[in-house]
């Protein structure tokens, strides 16, 4: 492997520690990949060429040492990074530069990570399509809202990036772009310094090419912080060490979505569930213990009411500057009576309890990550495939339980498919260990896309 841009995060860090690679060479190689592809893929809002090279030089001189020394990462453009723009995909924040790091970005930098730049988000992390293309087929959507993070990782512009998920914004684009997408338990990672869509549903997550890299990044961004009201004080394990590949004991394969999925996606899920069984995992079949459509309505009510509250002042001042879908989201949020918002929160608590009951009997849940293939680029959001896809991801956003998507082959048109594993609250070590085992034993691995 002569080209450093092909390295995973963990491989690159190992090479730097062993003196076989410099951070500067790694960053330069990635910048070369960005130069070659960005015009077509449009994954970045800002590439911090000078800042990244300067940080790499400091690493190479031994000034910064940490668990991520020399590791280049991308940051979704709703997450504050001091000195870089944070536009949140909106013309209302064009050119805005925060003066402080978000807690997550600050922790990455303190551990020696090099922030290569800010990646494209759909406007305010809602589904209005952004400029980013799917590296596997430029005429297709990369998914959203962490569009740029997924696309940049998929085509080797950066080995890993932070994203966020309120409905399916990590799992969706990761699946469509054929990379690993990991959403930890709600409360695992502080949200201070992140532009919110929905206070009680937002999560930070990781997009990478391996589950090991997801574990490595999680280890550095997880844990409570005095300046944050969202993160739990649960101990932060040494995730990379505690998630060494391990065959899961029992898995509940959720088949309810298969009838609504694209036939190729359904076939792939059935085939891989059978392979899990053949590999010695106790795979039972079942379904979510609640009505998908009730969950979706509950999710929309909570998300819309909270988005309306968050955006109230800005939206009332300049509604015309909002893209159509986020505009509709905020507008409809104003219309939700408090008693119905509270009713939705009560349903969510029930759904979370029911999922946790399932996870007392089974170590993991398995289901397709997305029910469809990526839609055409720029397609209007919504519609049946989009709604069905949300059903695959909302159970975990809704309940706050951790989940991970791994690539599971490509369809006849060469577009990626994914399988999703869901785990127990704060059970990230077990979830990641199972994911790493699936990568090794079943070949659920990412490939690097080469956009034509």
């Amino acid at each position: 492997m002569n080209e450093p841009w092909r390295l995973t995060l963990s491989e690159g860090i190992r090479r730097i520690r062993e003196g076989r690679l410099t951070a500067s060479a790694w960053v330069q190689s990635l910048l070369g990949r960005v130069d070659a592809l960005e015009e077509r893929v449009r994954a970045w809002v800002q590439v911090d060429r000078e800042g990244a090279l300067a940080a790499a030089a400091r690493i190479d001189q031994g000034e910064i040492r940490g668990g991520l020394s020399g590791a280049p990462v991308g940051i979704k453009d709703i997450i504050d990074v001091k000195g870089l723009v944070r536009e949140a995909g909106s013309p209302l924040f064009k050119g805005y530069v925060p003066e402080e790091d978000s807690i997550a970005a600050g922790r990455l930098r303190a551990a020696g990570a090099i922030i290569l730049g800010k990646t494209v988000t759909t406007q305010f992390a809602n589904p209005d399509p952004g400029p980013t293309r799917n590296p596997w087929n430029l005429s297709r959507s990369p998914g959203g809202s962490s569009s740029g993070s997924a696309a940049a990782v998929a085509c080797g512009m950066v080995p890993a990036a932070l994203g966020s998920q309120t409905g399916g914004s990590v799992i969706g684009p990761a699946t469509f772009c054929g990379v690993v997408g990991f959403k930890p338990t709600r409360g695992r990672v502080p949200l201070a310094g992140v532009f919110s869509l929905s206070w009680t549903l937002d999560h930070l997550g990781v997009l990478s090419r391996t589950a090991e890299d997801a574990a490595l990044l999680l280890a550095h961004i997880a844990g409570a912080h005095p300046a944050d009201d969202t993160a739990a004080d649960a101990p932060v394990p040494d995730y990379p060490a505690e998630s060494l590949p391990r065959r899961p004991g029992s898995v509940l394969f959720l088949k309810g979505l298969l009838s609504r999925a694209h036939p190729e996606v359904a076939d792939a899920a059935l085939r891989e569930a059978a392979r899990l069984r053949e590999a010695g995992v106790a795979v039972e079949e079942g379904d979510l213990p609640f009505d998908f459509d009730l969950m979706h309505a509950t999710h929309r009510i909570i998300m819309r009411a909270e988005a309306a509250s968050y955006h109230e002042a800005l939206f009332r001042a300049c509604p015309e500057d909002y893209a159509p879908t986020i505009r509709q989201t905020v507008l409809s949020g104003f219309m939700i009576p408090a008693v119905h918002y509270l009713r939705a929160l009560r349903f969510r608590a029930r759904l979370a309890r029911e999922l946790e009951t399932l996870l007392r009997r089974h170590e993991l849940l398995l289901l397709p990550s997305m029910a469809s293939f990526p839609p055409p680029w720029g397609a209007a959001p919504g519609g049946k495939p989009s709604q069905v896809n949300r059903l695959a991801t909302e159970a975990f956003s809704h309940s706050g339980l951790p989940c991970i998507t791994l690539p599971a082959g490509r369809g006849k048109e060469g577009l990626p498919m994914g399988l999703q594993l869901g785990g127990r609250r704060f059970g990230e070590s077990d979830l990641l260990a199972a994911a790493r085992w699936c990568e090794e034993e079943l070949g659920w691995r990412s490939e690097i896309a080469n956009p034509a």
Partner: protein
Amino acid sequence: MPEKGLLPAQIEEAMRLIYGLPVDARSRAAAEEVAKDLERLSGAELRPEEGLAMPRHRRTESAHE
């Protein structure tokens, strides 16, 4: 608690009165979407003892700093 979801017209009117936002084609479409979701929720039973509490976690000092 209402047994049925509010009607789109009631939702629109409430929005106009509370927020002074205009009633137009966009708000009408939004009101129809909201009404469907409210109706779905209103049609499902909740027991009085089912409150808001999610499985919780505690917060003290930073795990890192």
